[in-house]
C-alpha cells in the first residue's frame, strides 16, 4: 500500500479545484477543506512518491504547502473547569496552536476538576476523553499541585497523557504523564511572548512524536482499512454528511473516525457501508455510540483481529 504523507495547503480559492482533482487522480485524500473568504486551507494526505507533483501544482497556484504532522489526530484539551480562570487563556491558546499542524482539537472542561483535594472527574468525562487519541491537560502554576494533587485526574485515562503547566518540571516528576511541557501555566493574557510561543512549539513537537509512536505501533499490526478511506466512502455513500454544519463533520482519528450524524438514524447505514473489495464496514470496524452528543464513533479493527486488510 502506498505511504501517505499529511500536508497543509494554504492559498487562494481560485483554481484550487485543480488541486483536489489531481489528488483524486493520485489516490490521495482531502481530509478537510476550509474556505475563509478568498482563501482556502486544504488538509490532505498525499502518496509519498507524488509529493513533488502536488508541490509543483501548488507553486503554480502560488499557494504554500507545508507538512502537517498532526493530521488525522483528534486531541482532547482538558481544562480543570470552564471558568474564566482557565479560558480563553491558556487552554484555548493551546487548543488553537495544536490546530496549526493539522490536529482536530476538542476542548473539554471538567465539571469539578479545579482545586487540590476537591478535584474530581466523572466516569462520563473519562469515557469522553478516552474516545480521543491523545489527552492534553492544561494545569496551573504551582508545582506542588501538578506533582502531588492533579495526577488523580489521570486515573482511568487510557490514552497518552500530555500535561502543560507553569513551572519547569521534568516529565518524570509528574506521575502518569507521558510528556510535560512547562511555561504554559495559568495566564490572563494571550500567549504571544517568545518564550510562550516556543513552549507551544515544544508542545506541538512533543505531541507529534507521541502520535508518530502510535503510528509506528500501528504499522506492526496495521488497521484493516485506513480511516481516510472510510471517510471517503462515507462522503460518497451517505450524502447527508454534506448537510452537517458542525466543524469537521468527519473527524479522523489514528484508529478510527468520528461521524457527526445522529447514531440512531444513521448507524445501520454506516454498518452497511460497502467497499470495492466487497466487504462492509461492520466487518472492519466497531460502530459505537459516541459520548460526544449523539454522534457515531467508528473504531477500526486491526488486521490481526479480522485476518485481512483492504
Amino acid at each position, binding site marked *: 500500500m502506498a505511504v501517505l504523507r499529511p500536508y497543509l495547503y494554504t492559498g487562494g480559492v481560485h483554481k484550487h479545484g485543480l488541486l483536489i482533482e489531481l489528488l483524486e487522480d493520485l489516490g490521495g485524500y482531502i481530509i478537510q477543506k476550509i474556505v475563509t473568504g478568498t482563501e482556502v486551507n486544504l488538509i490532505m494526505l498525499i502518496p509519498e512518491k507524488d509529493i513533488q507533483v502536488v508541490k509543483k501544482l501548488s507553486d503554480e497556484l502560488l499557494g504554500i504547502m507545508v507538512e502537517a504532522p498532526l493530521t488525522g489526530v483528534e486531541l482532547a484539551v482538558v481544562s*480543570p473547569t470552564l471558568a474564566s*480562570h482557565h479560558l480563553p487563556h491558556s487552554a484555548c491558546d493551546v487548543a488553537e496552536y495544536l490546530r496549526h499542524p493539522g490536529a482536530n482539537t476538542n476542548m473539554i472542561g471538567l465539571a469539578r476538576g*479545579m*482545586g*487540590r483535594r476537591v478535584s474530581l472527574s466523572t466516569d462520563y468525562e473519562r469515557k469522553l476523553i478516552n474516545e480521543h487519541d491523545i489527552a492534553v491537560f492544561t494545569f496551573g502554576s*504551582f508545582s506542588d*499541585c501538578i506533582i502531588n494533587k492533579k495526577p488523580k485526574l489521570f486515573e482511568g485515562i487510557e490514552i497518552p497523557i500530555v500535561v502543560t503547566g507553569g513551572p519547569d518540571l521534568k516529565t518524570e516528576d509528574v506521575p502518569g504523564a507521558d510528556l510535560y511541557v512547562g511555561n504554559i501555566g*495559568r*495566564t*490572563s493574557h494571550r500567549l504571544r511572548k517568545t518564550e510562550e510561543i516556543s513552549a507551544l512549539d515544544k508542545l506541538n513537537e512533543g505531541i507529534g512524536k507521541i502520535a508518530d509512536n502510535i503510528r509506528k505501533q500501528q504499522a506492526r499490526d496495521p488497521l484493516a482499512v485506513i480511516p481516510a478511506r472510510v471517510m471517503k466512502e462515507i462522503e460518497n455513500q451517505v450524502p447527508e454528511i454534506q448537510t452537517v454544519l458542525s466543524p469537521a463533520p468527519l473527524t479522523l482519528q489514528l484508529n478510527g473516525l468520528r461521524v457527526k450524524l445522529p447514531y440512531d438514524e444513521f448507524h445501520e447505514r454506516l454498518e452497511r457501508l460497502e467497499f470495492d473489495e466487497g466487504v462492509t464496514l461492520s466487518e472492519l470496524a466497531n460502530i459505537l455510540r459516541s459520548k460526544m452528543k449523539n454522534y457515531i464513533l467508528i473504531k477500526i479493527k486491526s488486521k490481526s483481529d479480522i485476518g485481512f486488510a483492504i
Partner: protein
Amino acid sequence: MDSLEIFAVESAIVSEQEFYRKIIEDNLASLKLAPAIGRIKVVLRPEDSLFQMAIILRDVGTKVTTIDIADVDAKPVAGEIIILIKKEQYIPELLGKLWERYGKANISQPDRWTVAISTDRAEEEAAFLKDMMVADPRHRLHENLVDFAIRVTPEGFRVRYHLYKGNRFIFVASEEALKREWVEEAETMLEELMKGGKT
C-alpha cells in the same frame, strides 16, 4: 499615595511568584483597577491551599451627576429636553437611568453626542436631571474589586473571607475551612502596608 507604590507577591518558590505577579497585573489591567490601588500584597501558600491578599485603595472620585458630564437644555415649547454629552464614558449609566424614568419610547439619540427626551414638564424635569446622580465610582470600584479577587484566586479555593472597610480590603481564600489565624495574618499584612510606602 501613588498608584501601586507597593506591589508585593510572596510565595515559597520564586518562579511561581512571578507567574502570579503576572496574573495579578493582567487582571488589574483588564479591570482598569491599577489607578485605584495604592498598595497591594499577596501571599500564596499552595501547600496549605491558602491565598491571602491585602489592599489599600487610593482616593477615588466623587459621585458623578448629569451636569458633570453633559449640558442639559429644557425646550418647553417643543416639549423636550436636550442633553449634550461632554464625557462619553458615562453614557451607558445615564441612558439606563433615563430609560427607567421616561421609557425607551420617549428617548432618542439623533447622534453620538445628543440625547433627546420628550416630556410635557420640560422645565421641572431638566432641573431634576441636572442634579441626578449618574454613576458612583465607589460602587463600581467595589464590584470590580470583588471580581478582581475572585479572578486572581486559584479557582478551587472556594471558601472565602473578605472585608471591605473605607479604603482597606482584605481577602482570604482556601479550599479548606478557614482558620482564624489565616485571617489574622492577612490583617497583619494590611497593617504593615499601612505603615510602609510613601505617605
